[in-house]
Structures are given as C-alpha cells and as structure tokens.
C-alpha cells in the first residue's frame, strides 16, 4: 500500500485536514495498522516539498491540525497515472513456498508433510477471512475476497506440487 499515493487520492476528493486523512486512511486502508500522525504529517510535508500538494491558510485556532491540504495539478496527474496503471503481474515464482519445497526435496526432507501443514495453515486463514466476510461490511468482504483468491491459488499450486513430488525430487536432486 503506497501511503503517499493513497493520501493524494483522498485529497483528490476534496481538500482535507491531516486529521480527516488519517481517519479515512485508517477506516478504508489501515486494516489494523493505523497511520501515526507523524507519518501523516511527514508524508504531507514531503508531498508539499515535491509540489504535489499545497498547504492552505491556517484557520482560527492554529496548530498543525488547522491546516487544510489541497492537491496540485502535478499531484493529481501523478495520482491519475498511478490509478490507471496496472500493477505488475508478478509471476510468483520465487515465493517462500516454492523455496521451501525445493529445499526440502534437495535435502531429502519430508516435503509432503510440509505441504500438508501449509495447506492446513492456508485453509485456517481462509476460514478466518470467510468469517470476516460473513460478519463484516462490504468493504471488509472485498478485501477478504482478495485474500481468499490469493490463498486459493496458492492451494491449487500446493495440490499440484504434492501430486508431482516424486518427479520433482528426481529433478532437483539430479
């Protein structure tokens, strides 16, 4: 999650105080990892120095929280470009799962047991996400689904790999 670009996106809605940005970030993107005020103002400061936001006049009461941040044309252009650019489609070839299976086979360890344990851990996580989905809001469900689909594709790979362990063992030990 890119904090600067996400904050730019929130500012693209309307000029906002740092406090409002933190609140909305935490609500929609934080997922149990809220931003500190230090991160919020630090990021906004860097965005301002780069010309992507400008700081409005202090309102009555002063203090940092009384300032309103406004996105600039440069900031809006950068945000727009980021938003429409697809994320790099990773081939996922060097995941830790892959490394563990290959190393287990090279070292003659029980790769099947590892895959069974991993399958159980994946399913346990899928259960938790499913429960979140059943009880949470639509935003929670959307995020849970993203996780579920990723875990599901890992599981497919785990099953396929489990079915090919003997052949794989021959290849990596050759």
């Amino acid at each position, binding site marked *: 999650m890119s904090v600067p670009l996400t904050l730019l996106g929130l500012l693209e809605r309307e000029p906002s105080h740092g406090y409002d940005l933190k609140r909305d970030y935490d609500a929609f993107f934080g997922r149990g990892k809220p931003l500190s005020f230090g991160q919020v103002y630090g990021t906004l400061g860097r965005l301002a120095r780069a010309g992507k936001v400008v700081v409005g006049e202090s309102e009555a009461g002063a203090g940092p929280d009384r300032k309103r941040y406004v996105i600039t044309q440069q900031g809006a252009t950068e945000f727009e470009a980021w938003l429409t650019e697809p994320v790099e489609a990773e081939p996922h070839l060097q995941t830790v799962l892959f490394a563990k299976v290959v190393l287990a086979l090279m070292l003659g360890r029980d790769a099947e047991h590892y895959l*069974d344990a991993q399958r*159980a851990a*994946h399913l*346990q996580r*899928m*259960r938790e996400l*499913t429960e979140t989905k059943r009880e949470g809001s639509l935003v929670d469900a959307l995020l849970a689904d993203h996780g579920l689909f990723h875990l599901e594709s890992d599981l497919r790979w785990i099953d396929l790999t489990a079915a090919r362990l003997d052949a794989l063992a021959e290849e990596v030990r050759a």
Partner: protein
Amino acid sequence: MSATDENECLVEARDVVLSFGRTPALQGASLAVAAGEIMAIMGPSGSGKTTLLHCLAGILTPQAGEIHFDGRRVDTMGETERSTLRRDRFGFVFQFGQLVPELTAEENVALPLLLGGARRTAALKEAGTWFERLGLDGLEKRRSGELSGGQAQRVALARGLVSRPEILFADEPTGSLDSLTGEHVMDLLVTAAREQGTTVIVVTHEPRVAAYAGREVIVRDGKVSSFSAMRMDS
C-alpha cells in the same frame, strides 16, 4: 488426541473398505465427526469422497470396517431400519439439487415431511417458512424448470433441512453454481445449520467452500489423510 475426543462423537467411520468391482474406492478410511461440527471432506476427484459420504449416511454398506451413528452400528443394520434413520434423522443435499420436476418448489421442500407422515397442510406450512429464510419469497409455486441454478440449489437446501435433521450430508452442494452464488448457498447453509445445531458433512473440492466449515479432512486414495488440521474453536 483428535479434536473429537473431547466432544460427543455423532458419526464415525472406522477403517472402512469398499470396492466397486475391482476398483478400490475406500481403503481403510476413518473419520469421526462431533455433534454440531461443520466438517468439510476435501480431496482430488476420484479419491473416494462421495463413497465415504454415502457410507457415513448409510446409503452404501462397506465391505469391511464399521459405521457408527449416535452410538449405533449403521453398517450392520437392516435396510428398513436404515431407511427410517435416513428419513428421520438425516438430511441430504447433492450437487444437482435433484428436485422432483413434477412438484412445485414448495412441495419439493415439504417432501421429507410428507414421507415422514406429516399432513399436507402442516408440511406445506413448515416448508413455506424456509422460503423467506433462504430469500426465495414468491417462488413457492414454481417448478424446478422455472428456477435458476442458485434458486434450485437453495430449494434443495431447504428440503435437506426442513425435517430439522441431526446431520446434513452435502455432496458438492455448490458444484454446479458460479462462485458468488455458491458462496451465498454456503453462507445460508452454515447460518441455518448453526441456528438449529445441525451437524454438517460437506464434500467439496473447492477451498473457498471448505472455508465455511470449522474443520477439514483430505481424502487421498481412499484414505483420510492422517494430517490433523487445526480446528477453529467457535
């Protein structure tokens, strides 16, 4: 120590063996399911999941091993006693709803009650309560040909649960549905089962469906994988 030791075991397969002619389907499968549990049976196609489910449900008789339900041997019971058990205490849902095409949706749901000797008006009234619960309002008089896949599967689910069975056996209940509809059916199934304390054994090869269960086992080559999965304590 297995998770079921602490709880009352409702249904259990012990070293079950069953072959179809020369094809071995189960080769010493053991599984214990506690009362109130929602259990997923997973595994590759042809591994013996359906055969195991049918043995547990008293539909097939194993050639060796034992099936226990609520303290009774099912595999040695006579056919009459077994069909009474299936009718009075078990519910079933299959991949394709298998609704009776000549009957309306409502009559399909009422069927287990009618077969159990309930009066028609009482049975239809009870069946009717399930239509609202499962979001099927207004479809009571339709025949199966006039229902979408997801609607038909929800009608089948209502029929599986209408007699308030102690245990529901479901074989790929979402297998013919797209994933969103399938998940909706699973969500309803789990909600209804939890509400009335029904034990559920659901066969599925889809992890997203299995994730609605509290625990899963994997069937491979006619055996239940010995790897004991973690259990959610809820």
